[in-house]
């Protein structure tokens, strides 16, 4: 049953994405191979150098090993001010990770050449270079190839994850699929990646064992492969990073895609600007990318800017109606970014329980939860750690639960509810599932959660260059309330329609698009 559903989903996802699949696969392949190629260009010489200065070997190898332990996304995040987002960042991080096994194995491969053979080579009258090329490297090749294999697998993994920083490629299908709960789309991305990984794993393994038996064929294949990969990396220019007039970023969840698409269609329709989209940015990455100039605008929420550590880092004011004004003024003054007109929606946190449970236990406000410490709570990953998140909520309302809250990916929250593994979830006011699953949002009677009004956030210099953007996007003011947003989210996430389609229909209905 499950398999059949998955296959149907996969076929459907394929049909919807036929046009973009080849392009994404090519981007993915090219990025992965280039990452390995660059790692080879740097790693093999580095490994060789280490064998000549063996005192350097252990500190350098230890440093590389240490880098290896950093989570890749953390590394990307740290590097945004320098590398920005997108393919260069993905490439850089993938290279860093695949460098380690290549350097290590080159070093080990060469140092393990038996002293007797090294002696014979010197005794025959080979120079250091002749010995390296004619004896040490060929004998180290099986070990080096094993390192290339590990490095390639790392690189593929990193490139996949880097879809989250706008690198594109097959990882886009996976992240988008996860966001929408579209298993078919996840598979459409994951299966080719799996195949590619297996081909590389077995292919390189086969060549390595061939060359281990010292077959000339194995040496030629392995050496040829290394040279070809390195040459590809050296020659292939970066996929043209053409810069449109404005680049819109998109956060990595359905509403992010929809609002970004909304901005894009408005700008394309009503201005002469060329517009690019960088999809799938983690929420913090979008803001960093905006400030770093890698994107020019993106849809943001007032509450994020109010409490965000990189932004205003403020406590929620008593009078929540002042939030928008405060954020707009201070962000412009202190951070050089402008909050344009609000869409109308307030996507704040929403503690939800199934309506049946709400009736049974008589739950209407968050205060009422004091009476229900037995509930299973599931929250999203970010919520736990936010200044306006879990701890403050517990303190403000004096709540306690018997079991610790579970943290999951935002889009799995409602799945937990469906699966009966949660009674109380912390979702968002515009989640389509609230309608779909017949949930009750508990009222925030003490006003703990700040407002999360959605609006385009744009860098001041971009707005100065293209002032018409404010007018055009201003036409969206108060056009999208919570209920509308829930509907649009549902059409994309549950209805499996593309956001282009849904947004076009919406804008036409509003008379904002011909």
């Amino acid at each position, binding site marked *: 049953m499950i398999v059949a559903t998955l296959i149907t989903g996969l076929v459907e996802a394929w049909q919807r994405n036929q046009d973009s699949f080849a392009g994404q696969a090519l981007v993915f392949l090219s990025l992965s191979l280039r990452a390995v190629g660059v790692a080879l260009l740097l790693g093999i010489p580095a490994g060789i150098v280490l064998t000549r200065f063996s005192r350097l070997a252990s500190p350098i190898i230890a440093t590389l090993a240490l880098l290896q332990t950093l989570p890749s996304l953390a590394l990307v995040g740290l590097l945004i001010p320098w590398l920005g987002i997108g393919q260069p960042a993905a490439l850089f991080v993938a290279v860093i990770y695949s460098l380690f096994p290549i350097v290590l194995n080159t070093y080990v491969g060469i140092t393990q050449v038996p002293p*007797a*053979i090294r*002696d*014979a*080579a*010197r*005794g*025959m*009258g*080979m*120079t250091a270079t*002749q010995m390296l090329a*004619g*004896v040490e490297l*060929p*004998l180290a090749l099986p070990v080096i190839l094993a390192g290339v294999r590990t490095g390639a697998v790392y690189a593929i993994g990193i490139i996949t994850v880097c879809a989250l920083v706008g690198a594109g490629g097959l990882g886009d299908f996976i992240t988008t699929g996860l966001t929408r709960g579209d298993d078919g789309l996840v598979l459409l991305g994951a299966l080719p990646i799996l195949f590619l990984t297996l081909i590389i794993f077995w292919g390189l393994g086969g060549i390595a064992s061939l060359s281990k038996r*010292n077959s000339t064929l194995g*040496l030629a294949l392995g050496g040829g492969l290394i040279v070809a990969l390195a040459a590809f990396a050296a020659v292939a220019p970066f996929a043209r990073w053409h810069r449109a007039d404005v680049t819109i970023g998109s956060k990595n969840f359905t509403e992010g895609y929809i609002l970004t698409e909304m901005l894009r269609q408005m700008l394309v329709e009503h201005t002469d600007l060329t517009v690019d989209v960088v999809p799938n940015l983690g929420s913090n990455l979008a803001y960093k990318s905006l400030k770093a100039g890698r994107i020019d605008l993106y849809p943001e929420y007032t509450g994020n800017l109010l409490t965000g550590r990189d932004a205003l880092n403020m406590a929620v004011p008593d009078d929540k109606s002042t939030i928008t004004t405060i954020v707009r003024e201070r962000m412009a003054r202190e951070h050089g970014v402008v909050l344009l007109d609000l869409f109308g929606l307030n996507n704040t946190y929403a503690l939800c329980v199934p309506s049946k449970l709400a009736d049974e236990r008589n739950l209407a406000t968050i205060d009422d939860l004091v009476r229900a410490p037995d509930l299973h709570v599931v929250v999203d990953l970010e919520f736990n750690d936010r200044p306006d998140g879990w701890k403050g909520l517990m303190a403000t309302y004096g709540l306690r639960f018997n079991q610790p809250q579970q943290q999951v990916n935002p889009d799995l929250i409602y799945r937990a509810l469906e699966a009966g593994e949660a009674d109380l979830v912390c979702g968002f006011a515009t989640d389509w599932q609230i309608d779909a699953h017949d949930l009750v949002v508990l009222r925030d009677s003490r006003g703990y959660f700040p407002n999360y009004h959605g609006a385009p956030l744009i860098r001041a210099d971009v707005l100065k260059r293209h002032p018409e953007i404010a007018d055009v996007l201003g036409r969206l003011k108060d056009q999208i309330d919570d209920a509308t947003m829930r509907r649009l989210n549902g059409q994309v996430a549950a209805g499996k329609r593309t956001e282009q389609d849904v947004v076009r229909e919406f804008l036409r209905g509003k008379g904002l698009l011909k």
Partner: protein
Amino acid sequence: MIDTVAVELRGVTKSFAGGVRAVDDVSLQVPAGRVLALLGTSGCGKTTTLRLINRLEDPTAGRVLVRGRDVAVQRPEQLRRSIGYVIQEGGLFPHMTVAANVATVPRLLGWPRDRVRSRVPEVLNMVGLPEHEYGPRMPHELSGGQRQRVGVARALAADPDILLMDEPFGALDPGTRENVQDEFTELQQRLHKTVVLVTHDMAEAGKLADEIVLMDRGQIVQRGRLADLLLRPANDRVRSFLGRHRQSLALEALRLDDVLDGLATVPVTASAVRLAANLRLGPVLTELSRAGGDAVVAVGGKDERGFAAATLRSRVVAVLGGAS
């Protein structure tokens, strides 16, 4: 060419990190066309001495001369290409065919392809491995003895006048080792290379070398033929090196005329038992027992000399017993 000095060490010392003197003030000369064995236990400095000759090591003090020129002023690679080098198990490059291994030095010397291609079968034939059969094989497809022969062929490929051999036959089983040793002796009788051979095996040194240099703790303790070492050990260090193998070595290595010095002669009679001067001591003992106590033994050679069988017998027994 005889009596030209091919290789010479003058007061050479080699110290390694930590102040260990691997080679301690060693001087020696190897005449062209002769085989010199550096003999000693492991760690005695014999291998380091060998490696000083082709600059795999550079001396801390003293000079090394090859063909009369100080090696210190020669480019190490060029020097090494002009000297054949054989190590244990041949030290073959495992990723190259036999033919490619043999062609190593000619290629490094930049020989034209045709010349390399005709030279490889030539040297492989010299060591009894037909090129058409063995040339395309990989080293791991050969037996230990075959690998060793290829190692010798590789060292001979560029026809060097000097050959350095570091425990060349050490890894072979006894039977194979003797065969390869015999082949080497035959080859050397034709080629007349200057050979410096490192070995810890006295029998091998006695069999292959014209002269033996016995080393201990970096110093030369005695040089001469094996018979000299056996009959006239210079000191206790030599005696202790010969050790318990002395008797079997003496039976193998010593000839009748090695033990005749200072022995009283008697007139040769017609009934005298006749023995060859180069007969080994083993058969000599057998013949003496057959001849009986009061017979006269005539020993052949340049001029025939007669000895009383009993006198001769007690001399041989004394030599074998070590009382010399």
